[in-house]
């Protein structure tokens, strides 16, 4: 009996041992030993290449990497190259947190560029705040956040809606149907829209949220037929937006009388919807691929050359691209000082950069002054910019919340 048990024990130990050996520090940890060496500037690049939001995030990854390469090809920053540590968080918040942790704590990056969805940003937040690192987030978002560790490169609700909603009311009428995916961004945008509409005498005929990834919209279309709104104010994202617009088109509804006004639709969704089905509808964004400017021409040409002529640029990957340059400028400004995230942040504030959309500026609340535009989609899949903002619009992440303001000192309440 003894011998038998011993054998079993040995076998078990073998497996445990194998696991243990496999787990030997040198093999298991550390991407490669050389990471700390040299004078490179380590940054994290954290966009999903797989999973549900890879459709968008992979283009952000591409734009971000293109900017890094451009900078490195032009001699880097103060002679130092940017060293990107790339991770694939697979569209999963828990993986986002894990990978951000890895970047910040193990790879000791000085900044992370990353993510598209609010939930992934929220997942990364405790990591960057806990370690006082810096997260460059390129996406438009719902506002109402005032972290000192996030550089918000996208539009907040007031920047998308302040001009857009009154313009829509004037052109089509004030009866809005609010339609979005069921998460924080659409709800918050609709909050703002209601507020603006109230101020200008419009009304909300219905407010509806569908689950993320939902793709059958026939019931919604029959509700639209029933309610006959003047404007469909749309904050659907990704697959839902595509499916909805296809359904709208199939059902034979007319953009002249019931246009879809979207805050989230970019060239990338239109490409999937098909130009014909998207034609005649509107989006509000600080950037469109078809916007005429020298910087944009350069950006678009470089991007298509690098990633293929069938690719598109859009208002999120434009920001992902610009943010790398803003990072560069900040690091340049620090010069020979200590390169730590908080220093980069402080150096970035107030700095201007000539982006494809126009000259943008980082506000002291770490959001960006942007150039909101209203575009109408054309059958070729590009937007025609109908209205261009006359000045840089200030970001007010707490626009809808009276008595709250995001400042350089964080959230102020009065």
């Amino acid at each position, binding site marked *: 009996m003894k011998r038998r048990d011993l054998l079993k024990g040995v076998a078990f130990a073998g497996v445990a041992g194998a696991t243990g050996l496999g787990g030997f520090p040198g093999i298991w940890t550390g991407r490669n030993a050389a990471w700390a060496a040299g004078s490179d500037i380590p940054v994290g690049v954290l966009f999903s*290449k*797989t*999973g*549900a939001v*890879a*459709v968008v995030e*992979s283009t952000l990854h591409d734009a971000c990497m293109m900017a890094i390469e451009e900078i490195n090809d032009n001699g880097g920053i103060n002679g130092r190259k940017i060293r990107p540590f790339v991770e694939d968080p697979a569209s999963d918040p828990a993986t986002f947190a894990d990978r951000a942790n890895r970047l910040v704590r193990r790879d000791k990056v000085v900044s992370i560029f990353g993510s598209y969805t609010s939930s992934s940003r929220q997942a990364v937040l405790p990591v960057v705040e806990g370690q006082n690192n810096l997260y460059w987030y390129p996406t438009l978002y719902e506002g109402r956040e005032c972290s000192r560790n996030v550089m918000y490169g996208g539009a907040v609700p007031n920047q998308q809606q302040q001009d857009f909603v009154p313009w829509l009311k004037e052109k089509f009428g004030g009866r809005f149907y609010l339609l979005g995916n*069921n998460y924080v961004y659409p709800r918050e945008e609709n909050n703002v829209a209601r507020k603006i509409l109230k101020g200008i005498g419009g009304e909300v005929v219905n407010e*509806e*949220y*569908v*689950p993320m*990834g*939902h*793709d*059958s919209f*026939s*019931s*919604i279309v*029959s*509700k639209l*037929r*029933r309610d006959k709104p003047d404007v469909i104010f749309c904050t659907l994202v*990704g*697959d839902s937006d*595509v*499916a909805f617009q*296809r*359904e709208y088109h*199939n*059902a*034979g509804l007319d953009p002249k009388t019931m246009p879809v006004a979207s805050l989230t639709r970019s060239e*990338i*969704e239109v*490409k*999937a*919807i*098909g130009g*014909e089905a998207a034609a005649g509808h509107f989006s509000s964004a600080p950037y469109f691929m078809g916007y005429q400017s020298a910087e944009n021409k350069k950006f678009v040409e470089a991007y298509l050359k690098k990633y293929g002529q069938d*690719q598109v640029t859009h208002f999120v990957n434009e920001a992902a691209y610009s943010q790398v340059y803003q990072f560069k400028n900040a690091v340049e400004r620090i010069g020979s000082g200590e390169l730590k995230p908080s220093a980069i942040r402080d150096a970035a504030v107030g700095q201007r950069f000539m982006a494809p959309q126009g000259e943008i500026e980082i506000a002291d609340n770490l959001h960006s002054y942007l150039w909101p535009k209203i575009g109408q989609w054309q059958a070729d899949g590009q937007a025609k910019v109908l209205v261009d903002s006359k000045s840089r619009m200030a970001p007010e992440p707490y626009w809808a919340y009276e008595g709250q303001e995001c400042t350089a000192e964080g959230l102020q309440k009065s």
Partner: protein
Amino acid sequence: MHSWLNEIFIGLSLTSILLMVALGLAIIYGTMGVINLAHGQFVMIGAYVAWFLQSQFGIGIIVGLPLIFIAGALLGLAVERTIIQRLYTRPLDTILATWGIGIVLEQLVRGLFGSDSRYVARPEFLDGNLILAGVHMSYYRLFIIGFALLTLAVTWFLLFRTEFGTKLRAVIQNKEISECYGVSANRVYAVTFAYGAGLAAIAGALITPMVSVTPTMGTGVVVDAFLVVIVGGVGSIVGTAAAALMIGEATAWLSYLLSETTARILILLGVIVLIRFRPQGLFPDKVRR
């Protein structure tokens, strides 16, 4: 005023899509007891083949259907011969293996075609709407309803009016005896799996004009299809059709009256109750297993 007719039509349209997707799964599950979690990925691959044919050769969805079916069937055959075949004695393990297969297929497609969302145009002659008694019916949806009925009829004919169908039903009821009478169960399984995969691919191609084509599009599909199959009852294509109709109409009505989210929650709960009290399905077929 005609909204109820309208909802019935929408329900039918949802039913037809559910049925197209679930039918292949139902046949595979009913025949082999294999729980094919990669079914959604077969749907996705059908969509990609449709996109590929259209973007590379300008072949429209409908003209391309035979090719799409063959592509799906060949892929199904390959998967069956290499992997599924070894798991017939362990049906619950197929859940795990096919999940792995799903991951691999998704990743392969992503590697080949990228993460981009792809666009497939609807056939032009199906543009527009038929308006009848105030009900807006898009021609394309009408076409899908018709096509789903046709697929159901073809499948029924295949099962009940052909020699292959007789062999298949014999194998389902008594594999050993069927083998003793010259039916090669292995071959029947392979053909059935290929047929199911082919149907999935066709379903994928047909939904492309309505959704966005991405490598992840299959994940959501498979859960719904499974609910339909289980509610319908193992091995009963009539049950599958009835379950699709039930779930399709319920979705249409509940989403119209309440909201999409509530409708979905209610349907999931309804399915739970149904399975609890009728685990044999709506129209149980008295077969083994």
